[in-house]
């Protein structure tokens, strides 16, 4: 229990740090929302518009930095991230609520799939150490784990979309002319759109899981309790999963949590390449549109998502590993 309390404290601390960074950044930079909005419309609107914009955004009344910090923390805690510039006058939270499901759906599912599949392949490869699988796995996946996410995405687009005349869609989450609904047709369309980006995440992130799982397996297989399992006459399946894999998984799980940040980073680029309307894509769009309130909220959202995943991993670790429970 103490272990989980400690992790929870860490969670809160990290969150606070992320929020503070978020608070500090825009205050270190020149400009305000009105000029940012103005910058978005370069050449499109009459220069006089700046005045209108300043009024529209109610550019900051003069508050002390601490008061601003206080109200910022309060606002953020209550989910009030301000007003988006891109989607003016909608609140940022509305926009994020639209993007979040897509990211959770795509990146979440792809990442978990990569983790599960990678863990499985790693388990098998480590189990049959020196076998056919194991002689192929390390070199291949060392290489795939070093591929740039966005490039893999582009190659997939080239192969499965451009060169095959649009065999698979490479853009967005569903056909732009479709109406979101729970019909099979729409869901099928969504799945179709998710294939390439999911494949990209899978290809690039699976290697890491496979390799660490394989190495953990190899280490665990040398442990006496695995030999003991065999001595007890247990079936290979049971030894592999109950004895070896479960123990090998524990360090991997922590690794999973720890490297989620990396995966999410890569996934942002995947969303960008595929114009997938998730948080990452929105973030890069916000960057292009100089939508600072949105940017900040997104950064915070992504951090929270990663932190929650980390926390979940901690819980699962605690569940699987009795040793952490007492600690």
């Amino acid at each position, binding site marked *: 229990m103490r272990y989980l309390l400690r992790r929870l404290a860490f969670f809160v601390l990290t969150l606070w740090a992320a929020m503070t960074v978020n608070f500090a950044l825009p205050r270190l930079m020149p400009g305000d929302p009105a000029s940012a909005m103005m910058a978005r419309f370069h050449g499109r609107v009459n220069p006089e518009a700046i005045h209108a914009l300043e009024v529209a955004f109610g550019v900051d009344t003069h508050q002390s930095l601490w008061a601003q910090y206080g109200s910022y923390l309060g606002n953020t805690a209550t989910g009030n991230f301000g007003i988006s510039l891109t989607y003016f006058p909608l609140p940022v939270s509305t926009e994020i609520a639209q993007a979040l499901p897509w990211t959770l759906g795509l990146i979440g599912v792809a990442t978990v799939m990569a983790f599960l599949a990678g863990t499985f392949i790693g388990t098998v490869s480590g189990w049959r150490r020196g076998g056919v699988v194991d002689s192929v796995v390390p070199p291949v996946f060392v290489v795939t784990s070093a591929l740039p996410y*966005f490039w893999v995405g582009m190659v997939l687009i080239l192969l499965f979309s451009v060169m095959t005349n649009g065999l698979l869609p490479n853009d967005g989450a569903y056909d732009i002319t479709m109406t979101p609904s729970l019909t099979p047709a729409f869901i099928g369309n969504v799945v179709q759109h998710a294939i390439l980006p999911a494949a990209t995440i899978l290809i690039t992130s699976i290697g890491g899981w496979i390799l660490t799982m394989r190495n953990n397996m190899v280490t665990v297989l040398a442990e006496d309790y695995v030999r003991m399992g065999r001595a007890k006459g247990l079936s290979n399946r049971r030894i592999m999963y109950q004895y070896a894999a479960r123990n090998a998984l524990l360090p991997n799980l922590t690794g999973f949590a720890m490297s989620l940040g*990396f995966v999410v980073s890569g996934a942002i680029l995947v969303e960008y390449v595929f114009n997938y309307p998730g948080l990452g894509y929105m973030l890069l769009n916000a960057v292009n549109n100089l939508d600072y309130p949105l940017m900040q909220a997104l950064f915070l959202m992504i951090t929270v998502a990663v932190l929650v995943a980390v926390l979940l991993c901690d819980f699962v670790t605690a569940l699987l590993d009795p040793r952490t429970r007492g600690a």
Partner: protein
Amino acid sequence: MSASILSGTPDDSVGTRQAPRRGAGLLRAVRGNRKAMVGAVLLLIFIVLSIAPQLFTSVSDPNAHEFGLVLPPSSAHPLGTTAFGQDILAQLIWGTRQSLVIALAVGGLATVLSVLVGVSAAYLGGPVDGVLSGLTDLFLVIPTFPLIVVIAAYAGKGSLLVMIAVLVVTGWSYGARQLRAQALSLRNREFLESARVRGERRSYIIVNEMLPTMVSLILANFLGSALYAVLTAAGLQFIGLGDNNAVSWGAMLHWAQSNSALQAGQPLWVIAPGLCVALLGASFALLNYAFDEISNPALRPVRRPRARRTGS
């Protein structure tokens, strides 16, 4: 990723297992490992390209708009030209340097930072350790890429120096954590206690007794950070947050993307620089993995006896 032989248990040394020695031993180990060899050869090629690009292409300013636009591959332009009339191959060759500089600089600086933070956290212990490892964990979990993106958006496009600084700041934590773990396991190792009992000063112990035994992990760390740097820098440049006017693979990708090279029938413009990033990344990853194997013999591939059944 794993403890090195240097910190292994005594039975690691029993019998036939060969522990690497610094210097010659390491070289020999690399030569004996196929992954390491491939990685090293790749890296060597890139190093040569970056040192003397002019030997491999006659183009001296690869960004100059001096050729025909969108030429298909030919003997004059083996990979064709860009929509701006630049020779793609020449850009690739000249672009090696920046990627390599970023990789080496970030790898080096981040490793130094990891060593400083990780080792002092472990060795000093107590509240110092608490603060430093808390900080490490924090940097580890905060998704760095969005952070970099946000910072870059505020700060505008970075020069190479800014990019390196940002990558170092966001890239040291993984190594620091590993080094701390290793240093922690070393901290109460008897040879350090032996040095203390001998009367050595603390600084001597850290620098001269502790660090040398962590060489292979430090090296692995360097490679890991270099890999991180190569990939992240390429990603940043790709989305246009790098210096677009630089001669670099990332900038090439950016230009290709912003000119819809894939759709416009110029796939080579995208494939080639991406492949270079991937190859350089792969060379670091292969070396890294190989060092893991070298320092932890348990991970090495084994020959599987065929003749008679042996259990599993």
